[in-house]
């Protein structure tokens, strides 16, 4: 499940959620680390609360509660870091960290998964998603800091030429684009003709440790990359979310 949630369905590269904090807060490794930790904590705590307390709450209330829970987690942490430690946050972090509370990853993962599953499964999914986002943020932060400023964690690397454009949002989007392409390439190579031939007649059943919310196709499939299935999963989860917001069956959904 960890591999699937963090890598195969990476929230940033594959599901395209939480792009705003990733682009805005990964100008350097330090900012990326703090934002990743904040998102990780926010995801786990919100998923836990959603799974335990919010199953019977109407959907439109639930979505608002995710934001409130996020702010309740982030703001005290921000205050503690700022006034109780020696770490001085940059101005951009003071702007971005509270906004982490409203990142789309929390809403998507809680609404499509956490409220429909047991606590352990929901927290596992949140850990996987948070890890996936965090790793991508750290990679982006490191590359952008090295290429954009010629430093790593504020220490100069002595580079003669730096590319300040990489510290701008365009640099992050380029990294994310190549990252998504590399991930697709990695999984498509797993599904090479020889591998496909081996698994064609004897599909290996993989224990994902989660219920049918990731779609029945994924439970039976091997880890080889299936574009159609994955896009179907992504589309279904996003469509489900959109339909649930637009439809008026909140109470029915909340009681299910």
């Amino acid at each position: 499940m960890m591999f699937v949630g963090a890598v195969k369905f990476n929230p940033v590269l594959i599901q395209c959620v939480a792009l705003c904090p990733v682009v805005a807060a990964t100008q350097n490794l330090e900012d990326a680390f703090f934002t990743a930790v904040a998102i990780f904590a926010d995801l786990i705590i919100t998923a836990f609360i959603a799974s335990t307390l919010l199953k019977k709450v109407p959907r439109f209330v639930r979505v608002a509660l995710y934001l409130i829970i996020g702010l309740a987690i982030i703001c005290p942490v921000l205050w503690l870091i700022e006034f109780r430690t020696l770490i001085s946050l940059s101005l951009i972090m003071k702007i971005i960290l509270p906004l982490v509370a409203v990142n789309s990853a929390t809403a998507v993962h809680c609404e499509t998964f956490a409220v429909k599953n047991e606590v352990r499964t929901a927290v596992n999914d949140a850990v996987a998603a948070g890890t996936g986002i965090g790793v991508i943020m750290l990679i982006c932060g490191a590359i952008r800091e090295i290429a954009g400023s010629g430093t790593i964690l504020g220490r100069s690397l002595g580079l003669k030429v730096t590319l300040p454009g990489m510290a701008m949002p365009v640099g992050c989007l380029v990294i994310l684009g190549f990252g998504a392409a590399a991930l697709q390439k990695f999984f498509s190579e797993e599904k090479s003709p020889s591998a496909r031939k081996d698994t064609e007649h004897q599909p290996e059943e993989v224990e994902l440790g989660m219920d049918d919310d990731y779609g029945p196709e994924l439970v039976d499939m091997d880890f080889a990359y299936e574009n159609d299935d994955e896009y179907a999963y992504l589309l279904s989860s996003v469509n489900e979310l959109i339909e649930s917001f637009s439809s008026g069956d909140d109470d029915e959904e909340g009681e299910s």
Partner: protein
Amino acid sequence: MADGKTARSEKSTKVFGDYLVMLIAPCVISVWYYGAAALRTLIVCLLTSFICDFVVSIIINKQYYAADLSGICTGAIIALMLSATVPAYVGVVACVFAVAVAKIPFGGGMRAPFVPAAAGFAFAAVCFGKEVFAYSSGRAFMKTVSLGASLMSGSILRINASNMIDMLTGNIYGPMGTTCIIAMLGCVVFLIIRRRSSLLPGAGFLAACLVFSLIFPRSGGSVISCAVMELFSGSLLFAAVFLLTNPATMPANTANKVVYGVFTGVVCMVMRHMGAFEEPVCFAVLIANAFSPLLDIFTDRARIVFSRRKHREVTENG
């Protein structure tokens, strides 16, 4: 599949071959004005584009077509938009970005949604703004500032026969291959003969820039002088001929081509008035590229709605 690829490669060769023919004149003029410095920048950009195109194609297991001239063409366009004395790494970064980020990942020169040369130049401008816009004088009559810089500072040139000839022949301070108006007019004539329809965005672009500069002059002097300076400064005409005529990024519909050009012109002039860079035409082209497919989609939808309505009226009337 193979036939489609071959046809695309042949089309690419034809289109970018035309561009390379047109680029000969600005290249010769830049070498004439700036000498070895211009030649060095040209060689660096051409070699970088070619090597990057070849290497990235190998890395992603894509067959490299030597006849696909889009990479070389991109390198030449970038070189001509730079200053002659720009450090070599600026040209290298611009060309690598154009080829490896804006061209090949999208399927090559005939499929790239953004003009690769504009993307490469824009990235270089963002990274090395000081170097990119630090023009060298060469043999120019204006030894201190370019036309764009003087417009930015609000000063205006009194247009007379002498400096008009200098402007037409490109004997002014600016990017090394974009200032010669006569060469650009020669390219326009070439395009009229070879691909007349591709001139529509450029025409719309220049018309929009002209009207905008007449309505909102950047300096306090004569409006006509200001408009002439706007049109002749920087890479405006060069972009109209080489960036906006890119068939991959141009809308298919004839009217949309003009709209695309006008939109680019308005964005460019707004950025010239309010932006940080002396020459923002590449950014304007990239913004317009993003909207270019939408123009065709809106037109198609409008056509469908119109035809349905017409069909309904015919059915209702009997």
